[in-house]
């Protein structure tokens, strides 16, 4: 938990405000030829993509396309058979999972990853553990962003609704002061209104704080409405990468891969 936190340590106070970041539009997280398998099942087959600084990059695809495996391989939970992952130029392909957050990458896993037995506040504190002592004002800031979990801060996290859980895990990731946030299907099982609210907040954080997001979604319509760039994944391969706007307009592609 004492990992050097690199350049992000210079920004004090702002939960999502990390300093020393790459200029907007330059590649922050680069994935090159990534191939992963579970035994004989090849889930990723030479995936290449890049997430730019200060942008939301959405990875879209049907159930089983390999989206979760992509994020898990990037953060080291799954070890790739081939390929490379670099973060701001540094090769992190073989870095230990525990070191990723210190390098500026926060991965919110599928199924929300709330620690049910801990309180809301304790969950947030876990997000900042690796940074050592953290100002209380950073927590207040997360509670300001998500007032609904502020009211529940001393409740056990298992009492939260699905939407509140998603807010909690995003808030927890923000306390890690990431340069890039990896989100695995945050919309899963949430009412459209809550999804819109959470995506709206993400957009705001990206625009005002310069956060970068790699968003994995089956819900392509909502994801494309908030994303800058879309990457369509099918059976472990990248089918197309384009501006979100263009993907939205491509009816054939939408019907074939995005289900709307």
């Amino acid at each position, binding site marked *: 938990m004492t990992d050097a936190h690199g350049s992000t340590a210079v920004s004090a106070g702002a939960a999502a405000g990390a300093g020393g970041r790459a200029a907007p539009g330059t590649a922050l997280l680069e994935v090159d030829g990534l191939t992963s398998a579970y035994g004989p099942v090849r889930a990723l087959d030479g995936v290449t993509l890049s997430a730019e600084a200060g942008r939301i990059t959405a990875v879209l695809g049907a159930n089983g396309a390999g989206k979760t495996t992509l994020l898990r391989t990037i*953060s080291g939970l799954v070890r790739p058979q081939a390929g490379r992952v670099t973060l701001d130029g540094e090769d992190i392909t073989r870095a230990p999972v525990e070191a990723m957050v210190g390098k500026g990458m*926060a991965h919110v896993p599928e199924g929300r990853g*709330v620690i049910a037995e801990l309180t809301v506040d304790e969950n947030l504190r876990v997000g900042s*553990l690796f940074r050592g002592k953290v100002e209380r004002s950073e927590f207040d800031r997360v509670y300001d962003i998500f007032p609904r979990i502020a009211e529940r801060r001393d409740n056990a*996290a298992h009492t939260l609704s699905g939407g509140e859980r998603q807010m909690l895990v995003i808030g927890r990731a923000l306390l*890690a002061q990431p340069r890039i946030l990896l989100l695995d299907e945050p919309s899963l099982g949430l009412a459209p209104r809550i999804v819109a609210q959470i995506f709206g907040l993400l957009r705001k954080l990206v625009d005002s704080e310069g956060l970068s997001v790699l968003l994995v979604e089956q819900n392509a319509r909502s994801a494309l409405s908030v994303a800058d760039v879309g990457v369509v994944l099918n059976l472990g391969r990248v089918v197309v990468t384009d501006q979100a706007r263009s993907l939205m307009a491509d009816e054939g592609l939408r019907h074939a891969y995005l289900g709307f």
Partner: protein
Amino acid sequence: MQQFVNVTLSGLTQGMIYSAFALALVLIWRSTRIVNFAQGSMAAATAFIALAIINAGASYWVALVVALIAGFVMGALVERIIIRPVEGGPELNAVIVTLGLFVAIQALIAIIAGSSFQSFPTPFGVRGFTIGDTTIALTPTSLYVIGSVLVVMALLVALFRFTRTGLAMRASAFGQEVARLLGVRVGRMLTLGWGLAAVVGSLSGLLIAGGGFVYPAYMDSLIVFGFVAAVLGGLDSPIGAIVGGLILGLALSYISGYVDRGSALVNVSALVILMVVLLVRPGGLFASSTARRA
């Protein structure tokens, strides 16, 4: 009345020891989902270390501290070297490993220390208070037993609730993957958890030995009682383990104190209590409906 008070006090004292042993089992179960069958012989090993130190002329307190430290080191090493390779594998593997370890350590004790009964000292007297012509069985030794278990429990509560390490340990126990993604060194926390659990187990072994005899298998009945207490409490709940231990201690004390030839029934009674509770409340007395869903 006097008998009732005395039987109750002795039940509470014994119960505290069961609680401590149960707590050791629960701490390990809830972080690694492993029932550490070796806890008993690990504790016995530390009691023999303490005895060797006392026999060498050192005070009980020196021996106690060294034994508890030895317990920590042993717990941490066992997790790191023996348990880590089977963690996350089929549950049966871990069961077989801890059972094997139980037998192996017990055999090792017999080889090194012999199988004979050796008396183990207690730092305080075992005479009760006398008020008028009634003697209350609240002995300095029972106060020491209750007090030391309470102190250890309070320290654990403080660690888990008020320190960053404690939070990291709980996060590692309840959400291993998430904790790793958030930079917590989960492996280290599990090692630490096993070490601390072994300290608590070791304390219970030293307390039950005090004023009696030790031999390689002297922990065997405490293992059964501690296990019953832990299951009574739901196996997942530290509070449950403590309450389970106290309930079991009291129940067994009443049975041996009031039932004809009751002391012969104690071991059987423990298992009957366990069966009845599991029939009525399969998850234990403290089963929470919130069992891990994260």
